[in-house]
């Protein structure tokens, strides 16, 4: 993300006039709102001063020591940068929301650091820039692609690289297309002979020779038709083969890539987006490469072939065909332009109907319990009626104008006929040639009606290609070092002064240090959003820390191979995702070669064996999406068994018992106390009672380590932990009273 914009000349001059020569520019950010108008101004922070510069004028300047408590505030459609100037709250500048908020947040962080110690070198941001540096337009969301500035040649080149091994398959459809065009153009020549020699020639005498010639001609026509059909069959079959291979290859590549990326690069995108790229975008690319491209090629080929042939046959007649062409194309594009607008309108209305339908159907219980059926019916009727009306008028118009258009497009034919018969009459042309020219005209005019779709298809294709390529080219940001260590983990975890934020300008954890001996159970507590889950994400190395280090048994986790690390950590999350498959398969997930003995042992340890055995097919019962439905507690215990199967040295429980009733919690509690012995355990729990067995507790507050110690120590110190315990006891007491 850019944090140092270049000042325009006049602004730079104004700054130079005011600043002292030793001043050093630190950050220069644009602000774009002033006195109710959009403007292009700059906030320039140096090591001494903050300047507000607009149109060659310094609107204001504040020496840094006069400023305190700088913050950004998000308002409606606009944001503000505020600070206390000499103790009075003041608005420093306004800027437009999305574009610059991350930049200003970073400026605030930089200023905080300046207030804390001293201003060091300007901070860098590893946030991806969201706006094209060339044209300033936004990139396509979630990508680094600017549809205006991307080099098309480069995209084609990269695509070419991807087609390795498939090029022969791809070449054939092109060749076939050319061949079938060739036949298309040969047939009229043969027909011409047929017409001139046999149909219009009345003085013909039937001899054996003539009959043979006639049969040859007819045979050639039949053969030509047959051959072109055969080519079509071969072409379609090959298109299916190459298309299938191409998309399989692309999808596999994409999927492998997605699997190799870190959580942080994946979570930048939604599941829907990734699924879209793997499914839809690949289909678009495939369809273009194997279906549309040969078609366009054939059309282009036949256009030029037809042009040359007709010029050669009769240039004047050729003009009759080609002169109205620009007008025809204009007419066609006007028609489709109009039709497109109407189609969009229909599409929007159908989306609204769908949305309404989805809304009401998924909330049907609410609708029924509030007795709102009539309103729901009325609303749905309103939407469908509107859609139907629009559809009707749209279809009527389309069905009226499309035939008219088709008629207009081939108007040139009548000129040909008129002029041709004129020539015929004066015996300057024979009927065969006239028919030949008419056939060519048909071949050329035929695809014309779809010609305006080509640019749109190409641009859709390019977008999809870029989206696919972007994933393929992404560099994994959490990678193993060159020679990663495969250590056998004991379980001493040492967290040394770590700072981390999902966005670098917004640290979630600040300077946290904790020392954990192997076999200890550590509870992590704090308000929601204080960084609990983040801390365990870092221990699992789903993300890399920004500053500081995490070591296990004295080895930095960055030096341990990810495989070795994760195979020795067991995780139970609040959201237990069970895959479609049997109970056994799900428990074996972390160790596919586990024996049935081990599966049962893990299930027993997780207090899951008893209920599994009561399932109709025991350990072979199919669960997961659409499988046998288990209760939350049962799912949770299977997840615990899954985490235990490979006997991990480090166990992580992230809110494993939230959302469970007390009785189930008790079962899981027992399971947990059984399984935590001898393992280093990190447990996050909302209910503090879950953590009563914990050896030590980490209390986080706004990303800082607020307290660390045993239950007794923390209660005695009467800090945050004490308050949390009191609050929960109070809530429990109220519940009891009510009960």
């Amino acid at each position, binding site marked *: 993300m850019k944090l140092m914009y270049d000042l325009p000349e006049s602004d730079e001059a104004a700054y130079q006039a005011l600043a002292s020569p030793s001043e050093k520019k630190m950050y220069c950010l644009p602000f774009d709102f002033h006195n109710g108008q959009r403007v292009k101004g700059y906030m320039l922070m140096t090591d001494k001063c903050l300047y507000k510069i607009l149109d060659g004028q310094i609107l204001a300047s504040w020496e840094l020591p006069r400023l305190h*408590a700088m913050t950004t505030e998000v308002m409606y*459609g606009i944001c503000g940068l505020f600070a206390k100037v000499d103790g009075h709250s003041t608005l420093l500048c306004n800027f437009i929301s*999305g574009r610059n908020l991350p930049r200003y947040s970073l400026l605030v962080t930089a200023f905080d650091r300046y207030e804390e110690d001293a201003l060091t070198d300007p901070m860098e941001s590893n946030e991806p820039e969201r706006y094209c540096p060339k044209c300033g337009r936004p990139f396509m969301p979630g990508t680094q692609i600017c549809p*205006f500035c991307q080099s098309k040649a480069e995209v084609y080149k990269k695509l070419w690289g991807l087609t390795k091994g498939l090029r022969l398959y791809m070449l054939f459809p092109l060749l076939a297309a050319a061949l079938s065009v060739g036949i298309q153009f040969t047939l009229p020549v043969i027909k011409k002979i047929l017409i001139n020699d046999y149909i219009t020639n009345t003085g013909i005498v039937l001899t054996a020779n003539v009959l043979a010639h006639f049969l040859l001609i007819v045979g050639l026509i039949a053969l030509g038709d047959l051959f072109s059909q055969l080519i079509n069959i071969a072409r379609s079959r090959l298109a299916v083969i190459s298309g299938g291979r191409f998309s399989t290859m692309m999808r596999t590549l994409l999927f492998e890539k997605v699997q190799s990326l870190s959580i942080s690069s994946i979570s930048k995108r939604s599941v829907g987006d990734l699924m879209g790229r793997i499914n839809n975008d690949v289909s678009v690319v495939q369809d273009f490469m194997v279906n549309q491209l040969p078609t366009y090629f054939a059309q282009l080929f036949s256009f030029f072939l037809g042009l040359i042939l007709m010029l050669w046959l009769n240039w004047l007649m050729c003009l009759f065909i080609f002169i109205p062409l620009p007008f025809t194309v204009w007419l066609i594009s006007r028609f489709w332009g109009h039709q497109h607008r109407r189609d969009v309108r229909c599409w929007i209305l159908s*989306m609204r109907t769908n949305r309404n339908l989805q809304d009401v159907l998924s909330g049907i219980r609410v609708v029924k319990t509030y007795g709102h059926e009539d309103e729901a019916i009325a609303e749905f009727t309103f939407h469908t009626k509107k859609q139907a009306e629009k559809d009707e008028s749209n279809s009527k118009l389309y069905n009226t104008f499309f035939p008219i258009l088709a008629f207009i497009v081939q108007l040139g034919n009548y000129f040909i006929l008129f002029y041709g018969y004129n020539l015929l009459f004066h015996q300057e042309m024979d009927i065969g040639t006239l028919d030949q020219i008419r056939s060519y005209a048909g071949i050329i005019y035929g695809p014309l009606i779809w010609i305006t779709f080509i640019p749109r298809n190409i*641009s859709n294709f390019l977008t999809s290609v870029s989206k696919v390529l972007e994933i393929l080219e992404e560099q994994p940001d959490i990678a193993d070092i060159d020679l990663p260590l495969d250590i056998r983990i004991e379980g001493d975890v040492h967290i040394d002064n770590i700072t981390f934020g999902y966005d670098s300008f917004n640290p979630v954890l600040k300077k946290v240090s904790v020392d954990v001996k192997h076999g200890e159970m550590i509870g992590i507590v704090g308000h929601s959003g204080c960084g609990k889950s983040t801390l365990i994400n870092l221990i699992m190395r789903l993300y890399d820390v920004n500053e500081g280090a995490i070591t296990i048994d004295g080895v930095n986790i960055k030096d341990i191979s990810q495989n070795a690390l994760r195979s020795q950590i067991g995780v139970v999350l609040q959201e237990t995702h069970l895959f479609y498959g049997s109970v056994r398969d799900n428990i074996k997930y972390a160790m596919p070669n586990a024996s049935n003995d081990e599966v049962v042992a893990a299930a027993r340890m997780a207090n899951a064996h008893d209920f599994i055995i009561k399932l109709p097919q025991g350990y072979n019962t199919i669960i997961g999406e659409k499988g046998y439905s288990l209760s939350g507690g049962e799912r949770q215990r299977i997840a615990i068994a899954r985490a235990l199967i490979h006997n991990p040295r480090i166990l992580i429980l992230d809110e494993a018992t939230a959302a469970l009733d007390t009785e189930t919690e008790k079962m899981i509690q027992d399971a947990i106390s059984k399984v935590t012995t001898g393992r280093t355990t990190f447990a996050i729990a909302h209910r503090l009672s879950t953590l009563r067995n914990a050896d030590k507790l980490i209390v986080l507050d706004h990303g800082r380590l607020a307290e660390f110690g045993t239950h007794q120590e923390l209660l005695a110190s009467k800090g945050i932990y004490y308050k949390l315990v009191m*609050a929960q006891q109070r809530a429990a007491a109220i519940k009891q009273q009510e009960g």
Partner: protein
Amino acid sequence: MSTADKKTEQNQEEDLFYVRPSVPLDSSNAKFFLSEGNLISMDLTKEDGTVEHFERVIPIRAFPITNPDEFICIREPDIKDKGHGDEIGMIRHLTDVDEESQKLIQKELASRYTTPAITKINGIKEKFGYAYWEVETDSGKLSFVMTNMYRNIRTMEDNRVYITDIDGNVFTIPNPDKLDKNSYHRIEIYL
């Protein structure tokens, strides 16, 4: 544990669960004035007659679209160390406070709620599924990019149109029927 200890403990607990009660504000208990930093300061007269001074308060509309001049919340600003600012009170209708205060609040609201009103649409160019708009508004000429046109263009009951761009900025067309013919033609299909 002595009773005194118990009492302080209870106080501590009260502190923990203390949430400032929001009070109805009008000219009788609230006085707003321009702060040193050109923002709004406020004096709140409490029931017991004591006056609480706020260096800076923020007005927020509860119904920014349907009732912009009613239900104005007056809140303390969010401060990093403390987290969210508490609500001090609510003005049922802006005319409930004195004229001076009204003007101040109106001015602050106007600067906090920025929805440029589109007066003319110079062009909507669709490319790659994104629409690139060139418009003229009451805060100058500007361009923005939007996607998902059917979801991000909303027509309210009073015919007012709200357009949300890719950055989450909001633009409005107060009355599409009053646009010039070309501009109207450009957005017609999305309404």
